[in-house]
């Protein structure tokens, strides 16, 4: 009698186990479902007030939000800045980036002002837009189309640069041009990133010289010679 009870319980347990495991795989959508993103919110201090770095999605947490199909990731730095940053102890080169971010230099999108005098001029060539008198003016017929292609309005947009400044400028520009402010995040600066998705570009050779593996960078090149100036 006892043996029969034990056997019955055993069959019941096995049945529950099989049923439970099967149900998990049949009905559980959580593996493919993207987690809801928090609404953009600026962080504390001047990082938030002046540069607009996000409180929830920033250098410390961006690893949790990479690889989303509903998002794009843009790094706003130049590969090599023509400004003389060595004069002030800086590094003109994009020495690394976060995996998944694609580079589109802000200075190609809009004119950059306010650099220290020792630097001289950064990139002063053609730009898609000119910011003057509080307005963004398209310089080319294709300017807005290019912007909409690189920063799709139906996607979440994660912006990053070296120290959050260019990313902040880009976010302000997109919002000004009617992008949804609740879909744009200033993730902050690569210099503060200590996550697990760092891609090193700068590399020291055996002879001590330094080289840059720019071939690793997904780069949006804008060839202004193929664009049509607005008259």
């Amino acid at each position, binding site marked *: 009698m006892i043996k029969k009870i034990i056997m019955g319980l055993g069959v019941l347990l096995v049945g529950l186990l099989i049923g439970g495991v099967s149900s998990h795989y049949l009905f559980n959508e959580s593996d493919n479902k993207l987690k809801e993103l928090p609404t953009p919110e600026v*962080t*504390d*201090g*001047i*990082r*938030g*007030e*002046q*540069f607009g770095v996000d409180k929830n999605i920033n250098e410390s947490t961006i690893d949790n939000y990479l690889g989303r199909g509903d998002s794009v990731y843009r790094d706003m*730095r*130049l590969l090599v*800045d023509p*400004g003389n*940053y060595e004069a*002030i*102890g*800086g*590094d*003109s080169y994009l020495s690394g980036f976060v995996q998944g971010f694609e580079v589109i230099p802000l200075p190609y999108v809009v004119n*950059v002002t*306010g*650099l*220290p005098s020792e*630097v001289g001029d950064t990139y002063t060539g053609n730009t898609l837009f000119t910011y003057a008198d509080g307005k963004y003016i398209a310089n080319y017929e294709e300017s807005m189309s290019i912007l909409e292609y690189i920063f799709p309005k139906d996607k979440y947009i994660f912006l990053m*640069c*070296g*120290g*959050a*400044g*260019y*990313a*902040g*400028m880009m976010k302000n520009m997109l919002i000004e041009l009617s992008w949804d402010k609740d879909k744009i995040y200033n993730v902050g*600066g690569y*210099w*503060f990133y200590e996550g697990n998705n760092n891609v090193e570009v700068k590399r020291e050779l055996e002879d001590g010289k330094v080289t840059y593996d720019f071939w690793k960078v997904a780069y949006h090149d804008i060839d202004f010679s193929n664009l049509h100036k607005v008259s």
Partner: protein
Amino acid sequence: MKKIIAIIVIIVLLIVVGISTYKYLDNKPFNIDKEYYGTGEIIEIDYEELDKILSEKKSFGLFIYQPLCGTSYNFESVVTNFSEENNVTFYKIAYSAIKEEYVGKTLKYYPSFALINKGKIKEFLRSDSNEDIYYYSEEGFTEWFNKYITN
């Protein structure tokens, strides 16, 4: 039993007095070395130079910035104006040069300004603190600086 309680109370009081005294001394204003007065300059240094100055236990002001990306420019003008108006020389260093070092890990973000007393960071501006936002302005920086520096 009463003796034990009395001893414990005395020990606790001594600890409290000790902590209070330490806090008082730690927050006491200090002097920047005289060699930094006379001209108002911002001198760029690298980490080797900073390490040397710290090991010499000097007292000075250090502006931490990073070229590119637009982040430090506004505050840099605040620091530069203060330096010129008060004839005090500060050092400045790129964050990238100290990022992996103790100084960079202590400051955590840029732009920042650190007051160094005898080779040790005494106080610094936190760019991730709401309380420090005001001190990044001209008026605020003067107030903050004079709070910790007596000369």
